[in-house]
Protein backbone atom coordinates (compact mmCIF):
# COMPACT_ATOMS: atom_id res chain seq x y z
CA UNK A 1 0.00 0.00 0.00
CA UNK A 2 1.34 3.48 -0.92
CA UNK A 3 2.39 6.04 1.67
CA UNK A 4 -0.08 8.96 2.18
CA UNK A 5 0.31 11.46 -0.63
CA UNK A 6 0.87 15.11 0.29
CA UNK A 7 -1.02 17.69 -1.74
CA UNK A 8 1.97 18.24 -3.95
CA UNK A 9 2.70 18.64 -7.58
CA UNK A 10 -0.04 17.29 -9.78
CA UNK A 11 2.56 15.98 -12.22
CA UNK A 12 3.74 13.57 -9.53
CA UNK A 13 0.20 12.39 -8.92
CA UNK A 14 -0.29 11.71 -12.61
CA UNK A 15 3.06 9.92 -12.91
CA UNK A 16 2.26 7.77 -9.89
CA UNK A 17 -1.16 7.00 -11.35
CA UNK A 18 0.52 5.95 -14.57
CA UNK A 19 2.63 3.55 -12.49
CA UNK A 20 -0.59 2.03 -11.15
CA UNK A 21 -0.86 3.94 -7.87
CA UNK A 22 -4.61 4.07 -7.24
CA UNK A 23 -4.30 6.34 -4.21
CA UNK A 24 -2.61 8.94 -6.40
CA UNK A 25 -5.49 8.71 -8.87
CA UNK A 26 -8.04 8.97 -6.07
CA UNK A 27 -6.40 12.24 -5.06
CA UNK A 28 -6.77 13.48 -8.65
CA UNK A 29 -10.45 12.54 -8.44
CA UNK A 30 -10.89 14.54 -5.22
CA UNK A 31 -9.23 17.55 -6.82
CA UNK A 32 -11.19 17.57 -10.08
CA UNK A 33 -14.50 15.72 -9.69
CA UNK A 34 -16.63 18.66 -8.53
CA UNK A 35 -15.42 20.98 -11.25
CA UNK A 36 -15.80 18.37 -13.97
CA UNK A 37 -19.31 17.58 -12.73
CA UNK A 38 -20.22 21.30 -12.86
CA UNK A 39 -19.04 21.55 -16.47
CA UNK A 40 -20.71 18.35 -17.59
CA UNK A 41 -23.98 19.43 -15.96
CA UNK A 42 -24.27 22.15 -18.61
CA UNK A 43 -24.18 19.59 -21.41
CA UNK A 44 -26.53 16.88 -20.22
CA UNK A 45 -30.16 16.54 -19.25
CA UNK A 46 -29.92 16.50 -15.46
CA UNK A 47 -27.82 16.02 -12.33
CA UNK A 48 -28.02 12.22 -12.37
CA UNK A 49 -26.75 12.04 -15.92
CA UNK A 50 -24.02 14.56 -15.12
CA UNK A 51 -22.83 12.35 -12.29
CA UNK A 52 -22.89 9.27 -14.50
CA UNK A 53 -20.87 11.08 -17.17
CA UNK A 54 -18.39 12.27 -14.55
CA UNK A 55 -17.91 8.71 -13.32
CA UNK A 56 -17.49 7.45 -16.89
CA UNK A 57 -14.95 10.17 -17.58
CA UNK A 58 -12.79 9.18 -14.63
CA UNK A 59 -13.06 5.50 -15.53
CA UNK A 60 -11.85 6.30 -19.03
CA UNK A 61 -9.12 8.52 -17.66
CA UNK A 62 -7.85 5.75 -15.38
CA UNK A 63 -7.88 3.19 -18.17
CA UNK A 64 -5.99 5.47 -20.56
CA UNK A 65 -3.78 7.34 -18.08
CA UNK A 66 -0.66 5.77 -19.60
CA UNK A 67 -1.48 7.63 -22.83
CA UNK A 68 -1.41 11.05 -21.18
CA UNK A 69 1.78 12.66 -22.44
CA UNK A 70 1.91 15.90 -20.41
CA UNK A 71 1.48 18.02 -23.55
CA UNK A 72 -1.42 19.78 -21.82
CA UNK A 73 -2.51 20.08 -18.22
CA UNK A 74 -4.17 17.05 -16.68
CA UNK A 75 -7.49 18.82 -16.17
CA UNK A 76 -7.55 19.90 -19.84
CA UNK A 77 -7.23 16.27 -20.85
CA UNK A 78 -9.84 15.25 -18.28
CA UNK A 79 -12.29 17.94 -19.43
CA UNK A 80 -11.87 16.68 -23.00
CA UNK A 81 -12.78 13.15 -21.95
CA UNK A 82 -15.76 14.42 -19.96
CA UNK A 83 -17.09 16.67 -22.71
CA UNK A 84 -16.66 13.97 -25.37
CA UNK A 85 -18.67 11.59 -23.19
CA UNK A 86 -21.34 14.26 -22.66
CA UNK A 87 -21.42 14.93 -26.42
CA UNK A 88 -21.92 11.24 -27.17
CA UNK A 89 -24.94 11.20 -24.88
CA UNK A 90 -26.31 14.49 -26.21
CA UNK A 91 -26.08 13.20 -29.80
CA UNK A 92 -28.16 10.22 -28.81
CA UNK A 93 -30.74 12.44 -27.12
CA UNK A 94 -30.84 16.11 -28.25
CA UNK A 95 -32.30 18.50 -25.66
CA UNK A 96 -35.71 20.07 -26.36
CA UNK A 97 -35.77 23.43 -28.10
CA UNK A 98 -32.36 22.95 -29.67
CA UNK A 99 -31.45 25.64 -32.16
CA UNK A 100 -31.19 24.04 -35.58
CA UNK A 101 -28.56 26.41 -36.91
CA UNK A 102 -26.36 29.28 -35.86
CA UNK A 103 -27.12 32.35 -37.92
CA UNK A 104 -25.04 35.45 -38.16
CA UNK A 105 -27.77 37.91 -39.03
CA UNK A 106 -28.83 40.18 -36.16
CA UNK A 107 -32.49 40.65 -35.26
CA UNK A 108 -33.93 43.73 -36.93
CA UNK A 109 -34.67 46.61 -34.57
CA UNK A 110 -33.36 44.70 -31.58
CA UNK A 111 -33.49 46.93 -28.49
CA UNK A 112 -30.31 47.91 -26.73
CA UNK A 113 -31.34 46.14 -23.53
CA UNK A 114 -27.88 46.54 -22.06
CA UNK A 115 -28.78 50.19 -21.51
CA UNK A 116 -32.17 49.58 -19.90
CA UNK A 117 -31.83 49.73 -16.09
CA UNK A 118 -35.10 47.84 -15.47
CA UNK A 119 -33.94 44.94 -17.64
CA UNK A 120 -30.53 44.79 -16.05
CA UNK A 121 -32.15 44.83 -12.63
CA UNK A 122 -34.07 41.65 -13.47
CA UNK A 123 -30.91 39.60 -13.19
CA UNK A 124 -32.61 36.41 -12.11
CA UNK A 125 -34.72 36.57 -15.29
CA UNK A 126 -31.73 37.37 -17.46
CA UNK A 127 -29.76 34.47 -16.00
CA UNK A 128 -32.59 32.04 -16.69
CA UNK A 129 -32.87 33.31 -20.26
CA UNK A 130 -29.11 32.92 -20.64
CA UNK A 131 -29.07 29.39 -19.25
CA UNK A 132 -31.87 28.36 -21.59
CA UNK A 133 -30.16 30.00 -24.55
CA UNK A 134 -26.86 28.28 -23.79
CA UNK A 135 -28.59 24.94 -23.41
CA UNK A 136 -30.33 25.40 -26.77
CA UNK A 137 -27.05 25.85 -28.65
CA UNK A 138 -25.77 22.96 -30.76
CA UNK A 139 -23.11 21.25 -28.73
CA UNK A 140 -20.19 22.31 -30.95
CA UNK A 141 -21.09 25.94 -30.13
CA UNK A 142 -22.20 25.35 -26.54
CA UNK A 143 -18.84 23.88 -25.57
CA UNK A 144 -16.68 26.96 -26.45
CA UNK A 145 -19.10 29.24 -24.61
CA UNK A 146 -19.18 27.07 -21.50
CA UNK A 147 -15.45 26.47 -21.38
CA UNK A 148 -14.42 30.06 -22.07
CA UNK A 149 -17.19 32.27 -20.71
CA UNK A 150 -18.81 30.16 -17.99
CA UNK A 151 -15.83 28.17 -16.72
CA UNK A 152 -13.24 30.88 -17.40
CA UNK A 153 -10.64 28.75 -19.17
CA UNK A 154 -8.20 30.69 -21.31
CA UNK A 155 -8.76 30.61 -25.07
CA UNK A 156 -5.71 28.36 -25.44
CA UNK A 157 -6.86 25.90 -22.77
CA UNK A 158 -10.42 25.80 -24.06
CA UNK A 159 -9.24 25.29 -27.66
CA UNK A 160 -7.06 22.41 -26.44
CA UNK A 161 -10.00 20.77 -24.70
CA UNK A 162 -11.94 20.92 -27.93
CA UNK A 163 -8.93 19.92 -30.05
CA UNK A 164 -9.40 22.99 -32.24
CA UNK A 165 -6.95 25.57 -33.46
CA UNK A 166 -7.38 28.87 -31.68
CA UNK A 167 -8.74 30.69 -34.73
CA UNK A 168 -11.45 28.05 -35.26
CA UNK A 169 -12.27 28.06 -31.56
CA UNK A 170 -12.61 31.87 -31.48
CA UNK A 171 -14.86 31.82 -34.53
CA UNK A 172 -17.22 29.33 -32.86
CA UNK A 173 -17.14 31.26 -29.61
CA UNK A 174 -18.09 34.48 -31.37
CA UNK A 175 -21.00 32.86 -33.18
CA UNK A 176 -22.20 31.25 -29.96
CA UNK A 177 -22.14 34.63 -28.19
CA UNK A 178 -24.12 36.20 -31.03
CA UNK A 179 -26.68 33.38 -30.89
CA UNK A 180 -27.16 33.84 -27.15
CA UNK A 181 -27.45 37.58 -27.65
CA UNK A 182 -30.17 37.01 -30.24
CA UNK A 183 -32.07 34.88 -27.72
CA UNK A 184 -31.94 37.73 -25.21
CA UNK A 185 -33.01 40.21 -27.93
CA UNK A 186 -36.03 38.03 -28.72
CA UNK A 187 -36.90 37.68 -25.05
CA UNK A 188 -36.72 41.42 -24.54
CA UNK A 189 -38.70 42.18 -27.67
CA UNK A 190 -41.43 39.78 -26.57
CA UNK A 191 -41.45 41.38 -23.13
CA UNK A 192 -42.08 44.78 -24.66
CA UNK A 193 -45.19 43.66 -26.55
Amino acid sequence: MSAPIPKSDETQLVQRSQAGDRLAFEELVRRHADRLYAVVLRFVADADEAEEVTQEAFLRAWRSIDRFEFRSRFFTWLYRIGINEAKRRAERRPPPGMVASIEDAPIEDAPDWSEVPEFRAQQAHLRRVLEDAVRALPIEYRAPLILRDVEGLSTQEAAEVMELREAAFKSRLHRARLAVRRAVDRYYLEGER
Partner: protein
Amino acid sequence: MRLNPTRPRAGPRAVTGLVRSLRDKREHRWSQRRMSDYIDGKLSSRARRRLEAHARLCPECGPLRRSLTVLVWELRELGRAAPPARAVAARVIERLRREAFPPL
Protein backbone atom coordinates in the same frame (compact mmCIF):
# COMPACT_ATOMS: atom_id res chain seq x y z
CA MET B 1 -13.62 59.08 -73.08
CA ARG B 2 -16.67 59.14 -70.78
CA LEU B 3 -19.17 56.29 -71.24
CA ASN B 4 -22.19 58.52 -70.88
CA PRO B 5 -21.31 62.11 -71.69
CA THR B 6 -24.88 63.31 -71.03
CA ARG B 7 -24.84 62.08 -67.43
CA PRO B 8 -23.62 64.78 -65.05
CA ARG B 9 -20.26 64.07 -63.41
CA ALA B 10 -20.29 63.17 -59.73
CA GLY B 11 -19.33 66.23 -57.78
CA PRO B 12 -16.61 66.27 -55.14
CA ARG B 13 -19.16 65.85 -52.33
CA ALA B 14 -20.63 62.73 -53.89
CA VAL B 15 -17.16 61.23 -54.33
CA THR B 16 -16.22 62.07 -50.74
CA GLY B 17 -19.49 60.54 -49.56
CA LEU B 18 -18.82 57.35 -51.51
CA VAL B 19 -15.29 57.05 -50.16
CA ARG B 20 -16.53 57.64 -46.61
CA SER B 21 -19.28 55.05 -47.07
CA LEU B 22 -16.78 52.44 -48.32
CA ARG B 23 -14.45 53.24 -45.42
CA ASP B 24 -17.34 52.98 -42.94
CA LYS B 25 -18.30 49.59 -44.34
CA ARG B 26 -14.72 48.44 -44.09
CA GLU B 27 -14.52 49.68 -40.48
CA HIS B 28 -17.82 48.00 -39.72
CA ARG B 29 -16.68 44.63 -41.07
CA TRP B 30 -13.32 44.99 -39.32
CA SER B 31 -15.02 45.85 -36.00
CA GLN B 32 -17.62 43.09 -36.19
CA ARG B 33 -14.92 40.45 -36.77
CA ARG B 34 -12.94 41.65 -33.76
CA MET B 35 -15.77 42.27 -31.32
CA SER B 36 -15.24 39.08 -29.30
CA ASP B 37 -11.50 39.69 -29.08
CA TYR B 38 -12.30 43.20 -27.87
CA ILE B 39 -14.60 41.84 -25.16
CA ASP B 40 -11.85 39.40 -24.12
CA GLY B 41 -9.26 42.17 -23.91
CA LYS B 42 -7.17 40.62 -26.68
CA LEU B 43 -6.82 43.62 -28.98
CA SER B 44 -3.80 45.90 -29.02
CA SER B 45 -4.48 49.38 -27.60
CA ARG B 46 -4.42 50.79 -31.12
CA ALA B 47 -6.96 48.24 -32.39
CA ARG B 48 -9.09 48.80 -29.30
CA ARG B 49 -9.21 52.55 -29.94
CA ARG B 50 -10.05 51.95 -33.58
CA LEU B 51 -12.96 49.66 -32.68
CA GLU B 52 -14.25 52.04 -30.00
CA ALA B 53 -14.13 54.97 -32.42
CA HIS B 54 -16.26 53.03 -34.88
CA ALA B 55 -18.64 51.69 -32.20
CA ARG B 56 -19.35 55.22 -30.95
CA LEU B 57 -20.87 56.07 -34.34
CA CYS B 58 -22.23 52.75 -35.58
CA PRO B 59 -25.86 51.97 -34.66
CA GLU B 60 -25.10 48.20 -34.79
CA CYS B 61 -21.65 47.95 -33.27
CA GLY B 62 -22.35 50.24 -30.32
CA PRO B 63 -25.22 48.13 -28.93
CA LEU B 64 -23.38 44.92 -29.89
CA ARG B 65 -20.33 45.95 -27.89
CA ARG B 66 -22.42 46.83 -24.86
CA SER B 67 -24.66 43.77 -24.96
CA LEU B 68 -21.79 41.30 -25.48
CA THR B 69 -19.93 42.88 -22.56
CA VAL B 70 -22.99 42.35 -20.35
CA LEU B 71 -23.53 38.82 -21.67
CA VAL B 72 -19.99 37.64 -21.08
CA TRP B 73 -20.02 39.12 -17.58
CA GLU B 74 -23.32 37.37 -16.77
CA LEU B 75 -22.06 34.07 -18.19
CA ARG B 76 -19.00 34.34 -15.97
CA GLU B 77 -21.31 34.90 -12.99
CA LEU B 78 -23.19 31.72 -13.96
CA GLY B 79 -19.90 29.87 -13.72
CA ARG B 80 -19.16 31.28 -10.27
CA ALA B 81 -22.45 30.01 -8.87
CA ALA B 82 -21.62 26.59 -7.40
CA PRO B 83 -23.87 23.68 -8.44
CA PRO B 84 -25.69 21.86 -5.64
CA ALA B 85 -23.27 19.70 -3.64
CA ARG B 86 -23.51 16.00 -4.46
CA ALA B 87 -20.40 14.35 -2.99
CA VAL B 88 -19.46 13.41 -6.53
CA ALA B 89 -15.84 12.51 -5.78
CA ALA B 90 -16.77 9.89 -3.18
CA ARG B 91 -19.06 8.04 -5.60
CA VAL B 92 -16.50 8.25 -8.42
CA ILE B 93 -13.92 6.64 -6.14
CA GLU B 94 -16.43 4.00 -5.08
CA ARG B 95 -17.06 3.08 -8.69
CA LEU B 96 -13.37 3.05 -9.57
CA ARG B 97 -12.72 0.65 -6.66
CA ARG B 98 -15.56 -1.57 -7.78
CA GLU B 99 -14.90 -1.65 -11.53
CA ALA B 100 -11.44 -0.51 -12.40
CA PHE B 101 -8.85 -0.58 -9.68
CA PRO B 102 -6.84 -3.73 -9.14
CA PRO B 103 -7.33 -5.27 -5.69
CA LEU B 104 -4.92 -4.01 -3.04
